[in-house]
């Protein structure tokens, strides 16, 4: 195996193994090391190996000795009431992806109860709800179903077996004499039966069975069935409770003045005008993320707090920060030097020199804000020996640890209540728990000022857009050597951009970060599905005072664009059909790419006549273990790009809920299109220049293409879904634009005048 790609094949193997319930081939010691870096928070000493009673087959012995056995007791996940209502407790954050519906589907498939009786709720922060890969409770990396598929079914099957045992004990028969049917245990060949509700109390007290049989997927009745969301009823009448909606007796609202340059510190506060705003109660200095110091205005509601914040007269000690134009110059200069780090080498990197033809292209991608519909917020109720935090967060146990540290408490004194989140797209998974820790710091400052009350910190939209943790700005330089027939014989690729993982606890996880290489900066390039016999990928990570973070599909947001527009360009240069060219260039082992391309070709009626002024473009990309191909139909109308129609084909393994597959791929298209058409955060002297939707536009209703999703039939274990729909849309649109305009767009967002 090529050594350069180890990081990624490890991750592939790991995720595939998890989805299929196999042992986990990862170093436990590395995970425990990460624990230390998270201030005791990230892993909290839970060892690796989810094998054992409820983790499928036992995990193989790990480095450092046999792993502790991990038991996931059904009682933590399933509550059955005497009224037969079945409540599934979900350890993930519901922020649009449908996890409060699909996790129950996995459990109920094996539990065998009536779907109409099922509801779902968010779990408290507890490592019983850990992600079995990272041993923290978090939602991200499109991993929820992938890593829970076997685990949740096993929990459901164990619960069913416990219910059967409870009935057998009551009847004094052996468990093999009983069976279940939709929430009822009955005696085989007898007349006795008991409902789950009648048995639940006894059943949940029984030992968890060491070994349970899972259903043959051929007999699934719930998994694979299009299932409407369980959370719709409360989301159409305003009753669903988001973090923003938390209301507590005596609660205050805080709006903060954060430094205009990241990491700045307040030096002088004139708060006379702020205090004069009716309803403003206090103006307090608070420590902020990244060593900053800011000012919190405390009031009885958002409006006075916001008015008070705007009335502050402040002076800051500001660190240096970038100006976008000069940062681009700096990156361009870095593109002209060899990358200091090599992420992958295949064959002979010098083959470029002997190629018949060469193409060289530079690409440019801006910082992007996540801009979820619900601006960031968190509520903290700090007492002398306890803390409760309410938040829509993707990282409950890490938040718990970091909130405890900020409050000077132990993690078990901190309760995290997960609320619905109005989107997140990565922003609510912050390794520094910035918005949670900040709320704790405000609560602490209030206590010190003698205000003993819970506080909700609300970010305005402007605070949210200017709050940092962006998708990094990136540049790529690619040099391709072609043979006489237009086939690439050499491919040299340099990526310049900030590392997302450097300086976070994830830096200690070799699956993600190894030998100085942040896998998230080169994913989607190093694992190219195309046959590139001489291939080299280098990276250079500048240090810039702008916090960066994962943004729906992470590195694939830019790598897919480069790979799939450039391959399209090679196809055009060779005079070949773009789909035919890709199919010919694909490594024969990449059967999923092939299947997705072939499905999208037929469903998009590729090659059929289009109205005048329209063109199609295609892209295919694998991310988070799923392959998505998209064909976009595009026109340019009075200087405006219109995307009329998008046809998608996805191989995500077994589709647990086809409605969710459809929704998430469509959602990925909308999200990626927003960025491709409009998304750009720029800075001047470290200050972010955008602030709200008028200057950071996102896709609107009348711009949404008619989008269809087609699922490649598969009986393989499920793979990622939240993110893979995003990467292909920008290159698919760019490839259509190239056909329409004759120009190759190497910079995002699209600029028709400057291509």
């Amino acid at each position, binding site marked *: 195996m090529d050594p350069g790609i180890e990081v990624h094949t490890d991750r592939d193997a790991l995720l595939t193994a998890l989805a299929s319930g196999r042992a986990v081939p990862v170093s436990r010691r590395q995970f425990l090391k990460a624990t230390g870096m998270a201030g005791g928070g990230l892993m909290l000493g839970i060892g690796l190996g989810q094998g054992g009673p409820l983790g499928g087959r036992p995990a193989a012995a790990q480095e450092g000795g046999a792993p502790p056995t991990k038991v996931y007791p059904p009682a933590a996940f399933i509550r059955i009431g005497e009224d037969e209502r079945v409540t599934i407790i979900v350890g993930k954050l*519901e*922020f*649009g*992806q*449908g996890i409060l519906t699909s996790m129950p589907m996995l459990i109920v498939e094996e539990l065998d109860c009536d779907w109409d009786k099922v509801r779902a709720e968010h779990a408290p922060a507890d490592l019983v709800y850990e992600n079995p890969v990272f041993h923290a409770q978090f939602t991200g990396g499109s991993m929820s179903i992938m890593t829970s598929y076997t685990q949740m079914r096993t929990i459901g099957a164990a619960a069913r077996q416990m219910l059967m045992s409870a009935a057998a004990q009551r009847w004094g028969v052996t468990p093999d004499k009983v069976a279940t049917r939709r929430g009822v245990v009955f005696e085989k060949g007898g007349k006795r039966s008991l409902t789950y509700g009648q048995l639940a109390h006894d059943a949940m007290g029984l030992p968890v069975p060491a070994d349970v049989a899972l259903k043959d997927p051929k007999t699934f009745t719930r998994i694979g069935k299009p299932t*409407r*969301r369980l*959370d*719709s*009823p409360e*989301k*159409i*009448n*305003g*009753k*669903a*409770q*988001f973090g*923003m*909606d938390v*209301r507590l007796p005596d609660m205050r*609202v805080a709006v903060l003045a954060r430094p205009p340059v990241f990491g700045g510190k307040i030096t002088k506060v004139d708060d006379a005008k702020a205090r004069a705003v*009716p309803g403003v109660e206090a103006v307090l200095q608070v420590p902020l993320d990244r060593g900053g110091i800011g000012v919190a205005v405390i009031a009885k*509601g*958002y*409006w*006075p707090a*916001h008015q008070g914040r705007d009335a502050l007269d402040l002076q800051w000690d500001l660190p240096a920060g970038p100006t976008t134009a000069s940062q681009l110059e700096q990156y361009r200069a870095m593109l002209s030097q060899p990358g200091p780090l090599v992420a992958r080498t295949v064959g002979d990197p010098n083959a470029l020199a002997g190629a018949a033809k060469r193409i060289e292209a530079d690409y440019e991608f801006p910082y992007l804000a996540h*801009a*979820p*519909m*619900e*601006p960031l917020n968190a509520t903290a109720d700090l007492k002398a020996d306890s803390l409760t935090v309410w938040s829509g967060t993707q990282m409950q146990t890490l938040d718990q640890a970091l909130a405890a540290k900020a409050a000077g408490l132990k993690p078990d004194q901190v309760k995290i209540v997960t609320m*619905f*989140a*109005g*989107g997140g*797209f990565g922003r609510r998974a912050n390794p520094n728990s910035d918005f949670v820790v900040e709320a704790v710091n405000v609560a602490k400052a209030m206590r010190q000022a003698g205000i003993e009350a819970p506080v909700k910190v609300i970010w*305005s*939209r*402007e605070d949210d857009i200017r709050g940092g943790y962006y998708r990094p700005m990136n540049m790529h330089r690619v040099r391709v050597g072609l043979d006489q027939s237009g086939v690439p014989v050499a491919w040299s690729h340099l990526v310049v951009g900030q590392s997302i993982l450097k300086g976070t606890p994830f830096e200690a996880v070799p699956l993600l970060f190894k030998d100085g290489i942040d896998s998230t900066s080169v994913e989607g390039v190093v694992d190219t599905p195309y046959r590139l016999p001489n291939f080299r990928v280098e990276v250079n990570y500048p240090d810039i005072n702008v916090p960066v973070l994962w943004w729906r599909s992470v590195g694939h947001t830019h790598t897919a664009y480069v790979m799939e527009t450039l391959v399209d360009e090679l196809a055009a240069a060779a005079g070949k059909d773009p789909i035919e060219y890709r199919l010919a260039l694909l490594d024969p082992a990449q059967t999923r790419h092939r299947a997705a391309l072939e499905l999208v070709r037929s469903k998009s009626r590729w090659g059929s006549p289009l109205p005048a002024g329209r063109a199609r473009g295609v892209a295919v990309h694998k991310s988070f273990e799923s392959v998505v191909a998209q064909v976009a139909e595009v026109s340019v109308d009075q200087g405006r790009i219109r995307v009329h129609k998008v046809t998608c084909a996805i191989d995500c393994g077994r589709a647990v809920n086809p*409605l969710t597959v459809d*929704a998430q791929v*469509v*959602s*990925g298209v*909308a*999200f990626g299109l*927003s960025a491709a058409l409009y998304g750009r955060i720029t800075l001047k002297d470290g200050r972010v220049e955008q602030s*709200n*939707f*008028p200057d950071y536009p*996102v*896709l*609107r*209703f*009348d711009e*949404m293409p*008619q*989008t269809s999703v087609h699922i490649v039939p598969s009986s393989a274990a499920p793979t990622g879904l939240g993110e893979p729909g995003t990467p292909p849309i920008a290159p698919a649109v760019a490839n259509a634009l190239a056909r329409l305009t004759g120009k190759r767009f190497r910079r995002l967002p699209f600029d028709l005048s400057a291509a």
Partner: protein
Amino acid sequence: MLQLKVNGKTVPVDADPNTPLLWVLRDHLGMTGTKFGCGVAACGACTVHLNGNAVRSCSLPVSAAAGGEVMTIEAAAGDRVGHVVQQAWIRNDVVQCGYCQSGQIMAAIGLLKTKRHPTDADIDAAMSGNLCRCGTYGRIRAAIKDAARSLAA
């Protein structure tokens, strides 16, 4: 003290008259169904009806709403068109994160109260001020058409 009529009930409100209606609803009256998204009438999450018209409550001073009839998402189920729209939302499995949906539904109710048979252009015009980051737009369009069919039946 201001008197505000919300969902058929008149309530006294002790707020600065310049306070946006949104924050009176959320912070003074505890009605959190109406959402805060941008504060500048650019996203539609805060959409409510004032005298039957869809308005952005984040940018409407409460004094401008006093004396009028305010309807919020909390009253949608008790409204004939509102109920039909909500049922269409469930049938079409519209929601994802759900944060924008109160505003989307109030905008859709506003549209269907004035146009019983909206064209695609009518739907575009009525809905393009309501942003959704999950990209539920296609299902919203389908649900509005579905609701229009139900109302015509």
